């Protein structure tokens, strides 16, 4: 019998985000919600690989990590509604959603801002000799900020263990990498600082979790930051038909409603390896997953009601 734990988690995250999207369609939220459909594999893998006392610092697109580290969909939705029974008592909304009890010690909506805080969190683990690792998430847009370089320099100089995850979805707001900047080859950039650089792609959550456990041990042993670039695709894009684009202009998903995504008990969005749910079928077969998805959706609907 294969272990379905991580598969269940990926489905839970996807379906949870679909429910949030559906609520957003109905105008439930005033706060901007940044969904992360397509990012489930890395989030579930991080949650699986984190040590008990590890720390995680997130960005405005944090919903997937917070869902992976918490089973409180109802509290999360209430927080997005800014209700007093929200997870953070309606004080933080979505883009700054944190959860120190689960290790999410800081979340920032400002590009690159959390990168600068991470060296302090990581250095504190060294001072306290806690044996914990600091994880910090950024993206291909935020890594353009000087804080990316500065924070690596700080953590390397202080001998602080951390994993910097670059979620590279190829977009910053409505611009592709090619539309806004020159390419950044992270390998020589990190090599210049003697910082290990690793990559992940393909959205296989089990392979990701195994790799992350290895990277975690590597960073802790070396007392060094490690940069992990993860290739992924933010699902939920849509096509806007205009006179200029009669066949529809591609609109990448950034925030708010994903108009073409609806709650369904078979939550595959793309039939290729850009979709972590699709990738699950290669390991577990579609039938088992369909059954699991139905059960998961029923449970989530009950919880969210």
């Amino acid at each position: 019998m294969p272990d379905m734990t991580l598969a269940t988690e990926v489905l839970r995250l996807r379906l949870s985000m679909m429910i949030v999207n559906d609520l957003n369609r109905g105008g439930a939220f005033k706060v901007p919600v940044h969904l992360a459909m397509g990012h489930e594999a890395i989030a579930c893998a991080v949650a699986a690989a984190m040590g008990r006392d590890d720390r995680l610092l997130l960005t405005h697109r944090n919903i997937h990590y917070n869902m992976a580290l918490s089973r409180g969909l109802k509290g999360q939705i209430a927080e997005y509604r800014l209700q007093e029974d929200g997870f953070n008592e309606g004080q933080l909304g979505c883009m700054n959603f944190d959860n120190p009890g689960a290790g999410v010690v800081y979340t920032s909506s400002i590009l690159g801002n959390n990168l600068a805080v991470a060296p302090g969190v990581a250095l504190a683990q060294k001072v306290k000799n806690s044996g914990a690792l600091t994880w910090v998430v950024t993206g291909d847009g935020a890594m353009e900020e000087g804080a990316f370089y500065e924070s690596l320099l700080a953590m390397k100089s202080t001998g602080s263990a951390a994993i910097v995850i670059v979620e590279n979805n190829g977009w910053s707001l409505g611009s592709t990498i090619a539309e806004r900047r020159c390419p950044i080859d992270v390998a020589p950039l990190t090599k210049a600082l003697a910082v290990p650089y690793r990559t992940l792609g393909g959205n296989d959550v089990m392979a990701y979790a195994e790799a992350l456990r290895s990277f975690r041990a590597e960073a802790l042993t070396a007392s060094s930051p490690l940069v992990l670039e993860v290739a992924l695709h933010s699902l939920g894009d849509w096509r806007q038909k205009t006179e200029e684009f009669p066949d529809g202009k591609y609109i990448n998903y950034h925030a708010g409603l994903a108009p073409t995504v609806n709650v369904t008990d078979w939550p595959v969005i793309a039939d290729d390896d850009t979709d972590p749910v699709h990738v699950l079928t290669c390991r577990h077969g579609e039938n088992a997953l369909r059954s699991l998805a139905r059960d998961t959706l029923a449970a989530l609907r009950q919880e969210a009601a």
Partner: protein
Amino acid sequence: MTTYVAHLNAALKTRFDAQERAVLFGQNVVTGSCLSGLTRGIKSAGQRLAINTPNIENTLAGMGFGLMLEGVPAIFAMKQQDFLLLGVDQLVNTWNILRRRNHTASFTILQVIVDSGYEGPQSALNNLPDLCSISRIEGFTINTAADAEAVLDAQIFAPGFRIIGVSQRLWRREIAAWDAPVWSSTDAGLQRYADGGDATVVSFNLAWEQGAALSAAMRERGQSPAFFHVAAGHVIDWAPILRSAGESRRLVILDDSKSVNRTSQHLALAAYRRGIGQVAIVNREVHDGTLRPHADLFTIDIPAILAEIGLQPGVTAISARA
């Protein structure tokens, strides 16, 4: 003779060494001049770290917040307040998140305010109130031996975040050793150095020296002023000052900050609303012409100030001359 920096260095070292766990970090803090003597002799021991860092002010500001939220007291000692502008994102955005938590540890930015003159268009920012106002940060300046002790005791390792500014102009001078304040607020943001009923003199930012000079000059004239110093760069409770000014009916505000967002304006407004009769406000003149290498001194005209509040007959008041 004990210089200003020697006093600060000893006071800082004593308090740092008393901590079981803390990190003091910054550029040039444990080698070279050790921030021109400010951090000299401060060393790592056990869970106390004193470490040099790269020149990455934005991340260093963030690093202090990261240490604080992990329960490790932190001091970011930095050469110039001007450099802190590189960390404004952290001062605003990070602090606005973290301020809502109950902290067990401190983060203090201990910075040198370059008010010594001749630096040029840059490197002369003395506007601590501007930094304080952007996200309601508590800020404090240190002028004298007494307020060095009071501010460091109350603030340097107090849970939460604040900025403490020290003066480069005073660096090698003998530290002012007036008697300790007759009264100080618990956070050391407001200090009363003298009681008196003829006028209420209030100095702000790094203008304690001017306040003391005016008070001394008045005493030489047989007048008895109350003398307050506002060490806080943020807006505080003005009640003790307003009580005094309400009795004396004469208020003098001396503020050397180049900000156009001076904390002292809040006091002036409060005094106006109380109907306090004679108020003299002496500020820095800041214009493009002052953005060049020059002495950068805050000079006050004592007879004119006294004329402004009706205590110097025969001298033209400041407002009349302006």
